[in-house]
């Protein structure tokens, strides 16, 4: 690595060095690495612009020439130049390290997604304000909702639905009793005297659904937290660190990155912190100790190496907003970062989202639908306004719709019906008087049209 080493992370929040778990892990790892290798110097920059990151997210370790993103890649990169803290591991532990790293990342990320992003109150009360403090105003409309949507997409398969709406009284319902989304200020708890019977019924039905859903969700959350904490608890055993007795390793730094937000984030509904404290006290003590050892008052992490990225200019803000808006219409962002170490003969060896992807087709379909809808609405408006008697006017003269109102097919049917009427009339007359005559008369109707009336006598 050449040049000054800089680690870019998301900014401080929630009482922690960063709002993102992997960033906390990277900061912890660098702090402990520089403690055991005194000639390792680095700076930490709290940044917000992820365009330069290979995987679109932080942490990113950058020197003069190269950028490395992701906790595992950062560790590998530093070990390649000789800085690391995994030296004291046995060969077997070294071989198990990727497995435990992947385990913590996968399950820990899932739990944090549910705890901090999917959970309605935790997100809007704590996470969103935390992001507001560290992002420029225009990024605040893009990044936190995108992170929340990604977290919800990742955990959708679990089917835990009651985290997003928690308080029974504040849940609004549509007319048919469906949950319409976030609690709104207008639909606070209705007292039975004020609401109609239908509304009371809907609320009861929805409350019952919510109760059942909360039961199953509580059980599933219990299973999830058990599946994450129990193996870590057993791995820790009576040791001081997860793998070693004396020294922290990269696994400890990664574990702290996920356990510290779970334990220490000051959220409105701390169900995960409660689970950790009540059921896994050993793990809780380990988290508190290691966190204090790194970031506490006498911690090895010196806060003054953290600097923030320069605040953006107005021009950058406008440019970013226009790029985002045009990004909704046509997706032009690259979704795949190619591997710079491989020489490729053909530049399009892999597929990224091409410049004109399916978004134009969708845009065309959407605009066609919108135009058709507008045309229909406009035609209705014109008809209503002009008020003339036409095909949509209810004809009060006869009390039934005339088949001729329905166009040529109607006229054909009308003629057929008239034919049958004439025949029936002829039959009746014949039965009555023995003979019948059929007279056709041209008649001018109200509208001015000439119709043919047939009289049977």
């Amino acid at each position, binding site marked *: 690595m050449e040049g000054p080493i800089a680690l870019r992370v998301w900014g401080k929040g929630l009482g922690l060095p960063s709002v993102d778990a992997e960033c906390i892990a990277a900061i912890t790892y660098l702090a402990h690495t520089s403690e055991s290798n005194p000639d390792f110097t680095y700076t930490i920059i709290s940044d917000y612009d992820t365009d330069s990151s290979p995987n679109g997210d932080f942490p990113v370790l950058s020197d003069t020439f190269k950028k490395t993103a992701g906790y595992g890649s950062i560790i590998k990169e530093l070990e390649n130049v000789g800085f690391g803290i995994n030296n004291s591991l046995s060969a077997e532990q070294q071989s198990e390290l990727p497995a435990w790293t992947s385990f913590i990342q996968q*399950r820990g990320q899932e739990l944090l997604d549910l705890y901090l992003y999917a959970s309605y109150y935790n997100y809007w009360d704590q996470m969103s304000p935390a992001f507001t403090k560290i992002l420029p105003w225009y990024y605040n409309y893009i990044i936190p909702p995108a992170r929340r949507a990604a977290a919800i997409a990742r955990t959708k398969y679990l089917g835990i639905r009651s985290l997003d709406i928690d308080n029974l009284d504040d849940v609004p319902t549509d007319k048919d009793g469906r949950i319409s989304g976030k609690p709104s200020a207008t639909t606070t708890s209705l007292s039975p005297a004020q609401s109609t019977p239908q509304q009371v019924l809907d609320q009861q039905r929805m409350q019952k659904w919510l109760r059942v859903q909360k039961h199953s969700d509580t059980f599933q959350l219990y299973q999830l937290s058990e599946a994450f904490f129990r193996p870590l608890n057993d791995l820790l055993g009576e040791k001081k660190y997860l793998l070693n007795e004396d020294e922290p390793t990269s696994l400890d730094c990664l574990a702290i990155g996920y356990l510290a937000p779970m334990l220490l984030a000051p959220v409105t509904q701390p169900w995960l912190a409660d689970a950790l404290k009540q059921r896994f006290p050993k793990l809780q003590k380990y988290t508190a100790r290691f966190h204090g050892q790194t970031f506490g008052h006498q911690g090895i992490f010196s806060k003054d190496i953290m600097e923030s990225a320069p605040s953006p200019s107005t021009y950058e803000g406008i440019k970013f907003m226009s790029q985002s808006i045009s990004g909704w219409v046509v997706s032009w962002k690259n979704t795949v*970062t190619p591997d710079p170490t491989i020489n490729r003969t053909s530049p399009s060896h892999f597929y990224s989202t091409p410049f004109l992807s399916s978004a134009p087709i969708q845009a065309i379909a959407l605009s066609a639908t919108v135009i058709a809808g507008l045309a229909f609405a406009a035609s209705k408006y014109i008809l209503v306004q002009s008020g003339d008697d036409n095909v949509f006017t209810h004809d009060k003269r006869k009390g039934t719709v005339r088949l001729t109102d329905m166009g040529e097919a109607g006229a054909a049917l009308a003629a057929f019906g008239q034919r049958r009427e004439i025949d029936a009339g002829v039959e009746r007359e014949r039965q009555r008087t023995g003979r019948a005559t059929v007279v056709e008369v041209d008649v001018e109707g*109200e509208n001015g049209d000439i119709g043919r009336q047939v009289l049977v006598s």
Partner: protein
Amino acid sequence: MSKPSQATSDDTSPRTKPTRSILSIPPSLKRLFDEFPLVTYAANELPARSVSVPNKRDRADIHAFYDAHLSRRRSSEGGGRGGGKGQRDDALHAFFSWAGEGDVSPNVASFNPGCLRWQAYLVSQGIKFHVVPSNNHASFPHSLPLVASHPHAGGPFAQPIITSEGLGKWAKKSGEMGMKEDAFMALVDGPVRRAWLFSMYMTPNFEKLTVPCYIDAHTSSPIIRLFSARELRQAAQAELLKYKPVIDERAIYSDAEDAFQALDSYFSRREEGTKPTTLLDAAVFAYTYLLLELAEDGWADRRLADMVRGLEGLRAHKEEIRKGYFRARPPGVWRRSKMVDV
């Protein structure tokens, strides 16, 4: 019949225009729809027995395969359980998975690692089934594999339909997987799966291998093939984008390399006598079999296959399972296009 011009004089009610908004349905259409009420039918039950049992010759093949498999296990175990002599001939579970037409026998590997994992696991547990070639849209949870159990086929399946989640729960209950195996399963479900998705869907492997297997068997119309292939690739890309906002190719392959090396050393260090019948073995076998079975020039992008080919422990593990526990044959699509050394 009175003349029509007289009709209006009989109508004493004032002729008012009904007030309606822009969004109201035209009255003539409303009357038409009042005449024809819609009928909502009750929901259909699940098609529990709509699967056709394979013909006699295939059934005989399947039973011969299982008898050979079980006798091999019995001879190596020295005793073991009986082969279910009182069973009916056609009492076989149905395993819906991604397979080619005519690949009914359970020893023909599926080309989808998720289905192949369960196929290998069920065979190694000795559960008899026949394979029903299927696709995502045909199954109600929209994901394969799916097991439709036969009531007379014995085995541990009590419910008529078992999804892959149910199979997971059953494997965990009967499972011999400890804490360490759980951690290694996270490796298989994380970096290995992401590298497989990237290699099979985002590189030229997509046209050469993935499209013939998944798309061409279901439709022959070129327009539908084009759009289905596009949708499939976008679904795979969306799955990869769930992990990070931008797909970093270098990180994916580097993580996969670490993962394969960790699995390699795990299997090399394992004691000699342990039988590779856990879910972890089946899951790793699914990926290594599909990566190693194809000849080198069958791949358009060989990076992942070369990674596995270089690891001795994984090759030995795959051979051990293939010889002793699941005599798999390559998928029909690969054999027919002569991409495999048969």
